């Protein structure tokens, strides 16, 4: 573990170099996890069929909700672990490790039991039809049976990062992608197991890496290792974990809510295939969004440190460079999607009706992507400099506050296109709001700097 809490290079090294150094690993990790999400769609689209893709898209909100419950435990656990390890308090660290496992066991199994009992009504509510229900049900049953492993794997991966092993955590992510892809090919194309095969591949990939994690954390010579006595839940730890985890939980739950509204609107206006088209568009969009999130993660320590150290020209520089990189990525996505939408969609399906729907959806959804990079970086910038309220507001403005009313109103007038158009409208408004907030912030900085200079002169 690093001894120095704040590396001095953050205040001196060239911004471009720092940004590369901090952002590249984050971008790789983010891309790996979005590839993991894409894999199933590709194999189901080609190996099972277009309707199966719609069935899969209906499962997204339920998977979001499962992830929300996972982050409820995981985020809190890793924050508490980082605090304890920062004080070399390995004893409590081990208790936290044990409690994360214990709590994940309870939450993971409880979630599965409840959702398995009410699976059909839940899936209908999430946008299933008579035709797509059986696909969604088959996929989700396997995933829910394996849910406790998913939670455990995600939770331990977070702890691995907090324990100062970000590389191991990244390799774990990359291996799940590879195992998942390999098993998908075998189960869906080789054994013809259909959508169930794809779900099994996903679960097995996580189980394999979970076994590896358990082996890693069972080594009694490693400063963190699993002890039976630590599994008993400590009330105070659990309360702390859940309070820290509640914020990411609600963010994830909001994402779940939005996808439900999208699926329902698409089902109403465009039928099952429109829902499947969203599944494709969502996966492609996610790939670019995640790269920008990687840039954001790299920017955070640099902007935060320099802002704290009052090195304002460097703060401005890292903000500008991050916006530039994010915009380059998003413009590339935009150009690619507008010029070759058929090629992009062909990765997922060959069904001509689905291709046509997805191409329209893709083109409309990406209209404002050239300015989405700016919006996302700005939101993260506020977070980096300690203004979390503004950061959350900006993040919600694009993903909830403006999007939700659009999704509720526009489809009644414009049909399926109303759903697709909700995204660029929301993106545009959110980017304008972000621009205004950023402009105001910099004006305030200037006023403060002027005041400080005046004070210095008066002394």
């Amino acid at each position, binding site marked *: 573990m690093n001894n120095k*809490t*704040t590396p001095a290079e953050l205040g001196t090294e060239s911004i471009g170099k720092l940004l590369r150094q901090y952002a590249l690993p984050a971008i790789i990790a983010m891309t790996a996890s979005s590839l993991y999400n894409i894999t199933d769609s590709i194999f189901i689209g080609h190996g099972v069929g277009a309707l199966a893709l719609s069935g899969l898209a209906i499962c997204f909100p339920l998977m979001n909700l499962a992830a929300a419950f996972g982050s409820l435990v995981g985020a809190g656990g*890793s924050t508490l672990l980082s605090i304890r390890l920062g004080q070399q308090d390995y004893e409590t660290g081990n208790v936290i490790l044990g409690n994360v496992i214990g709590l994940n066991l309870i939450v993971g199994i409880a979630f599965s039991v409840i959702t398995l009992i009410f699976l059909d009504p839940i899936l209908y509510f999430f946008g299933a039809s008579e035709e797509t229900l059986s696909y969604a049900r088959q996929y989700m049953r396997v995933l829910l049976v394996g849910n406790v492993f998913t939670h455990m794997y995600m939770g331990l991966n977070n702890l691995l990062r907090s324990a100062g092993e970000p590389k191991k955590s990244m390799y774990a992510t990359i291996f799940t992608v590879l195992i998942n892809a390999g098993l998908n090919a075998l189960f869906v194309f080789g054994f013809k197991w259909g959508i169930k095969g794809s779900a099994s591949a996903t679960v097995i990939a996580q189980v394999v890496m979970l076994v590896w994690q358990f082996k890693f954390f069972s080594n009694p010579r490693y400063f963190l290792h699993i002890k039976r006595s630590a599994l008993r839940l400590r009330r105070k730890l659990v309360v702390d974990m859940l309070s820290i985890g509640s914020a990411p939980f609600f963010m994830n739950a909001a994402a779940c809510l939005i996808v439900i509204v999208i699926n329902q609107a698409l089902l109403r206006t465009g039928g099952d295939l429109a829902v499947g088209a969203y599944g494709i568009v969502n996966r492609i969009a996610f790939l670019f969004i995640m790269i920008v999130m990687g840039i954001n*993660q790299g920017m955070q320590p640099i902007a935060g440190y320099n*802002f704290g150290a009052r090195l304002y020209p460097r703060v401005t520089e890292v903000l500008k460079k991050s916006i530039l990189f994010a915009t380059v990525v998003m413009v590339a996505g935009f150009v690619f999607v507008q010029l070759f939408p058929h090629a992009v969609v062909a990765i997922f399906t060959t069904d001509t009706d689905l291709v046509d729907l997805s191409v329209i959806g893709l083109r409309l959804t990406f209209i404002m992507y050239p300015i989405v990079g700016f919006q996302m970086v700005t939101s993260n910038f506020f*977070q980096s400099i*300690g203004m979390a309220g503004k950061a959350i507001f900006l993040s919600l403005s694009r993903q909830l506050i403006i999007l939700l009313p659009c999704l509720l109103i526009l489809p009644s007038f414009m049909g399926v296109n109303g759903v697709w158009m909700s995204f660029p409208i929301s993106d545009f408004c959110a980017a304008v709001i972000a621009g205004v907030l950023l402009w105001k912030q910099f004006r305030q900085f200037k006023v403060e700097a002027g005041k400080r200079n005046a004070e210095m002169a008066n002394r």
Partner: protein
Amino acid sequence: MEHCIINIGRQYGSGGREIGEKIARRLHFAYYDKELISLASKESGLGKEFFEAADEKKTYSLTGGWLGLRNNFISSNFLENYLSNETLFKIQSDIIRELADKQHCVFVGRCADYILRNYPHVLNVFITADLADRKRRILERMDDLTEDKAEDMLEKTDKRRAGYYNYYTGKTWGAAASYHVCINSSVLGIDGTVDYLYNLFEKSGKGEVERQK
């Protein structure tokens, strides 16, 4: 590692700071309270105002903390954010350990008892006082404070300190089991309490190290 340390936790208005200063002077120990903030600021290069804002506050409460979600909901490692309360706490605790390595010290607040829990010659004290005395003390300190506001302020400050301590240490603020000795300064008065703690420190053998030098 061979230095003597006295850590003082205290209720707001209990006279803990005064007691800490007096005992430090008597033992010729270095005394650290708010100075830790400037030291942490100088050492890390980060502005003092960030440490002041995070001083003896925990991160999550419904208003300040819930919206104060510091991390991406994807990444959850606060060390990626240099202005999070947890990072600032880590910087401050590094400083406390550095100071304890250099000389004999008295630390007031800031979870120093937990941070220095593995140091051999440490005495951990918690100081309370009767409500009337605490109220009188903070009314003297602040001119524009009214009587009924004082009580409110005592309660709020202690609640904040308790939240901070319990969050970062996993122990319970003000509970006897968290310290070596808990004492109500109203019983012996400030100077009487200083005498008492001085004697305790000498008798406990923790003071022997000092004489060896």
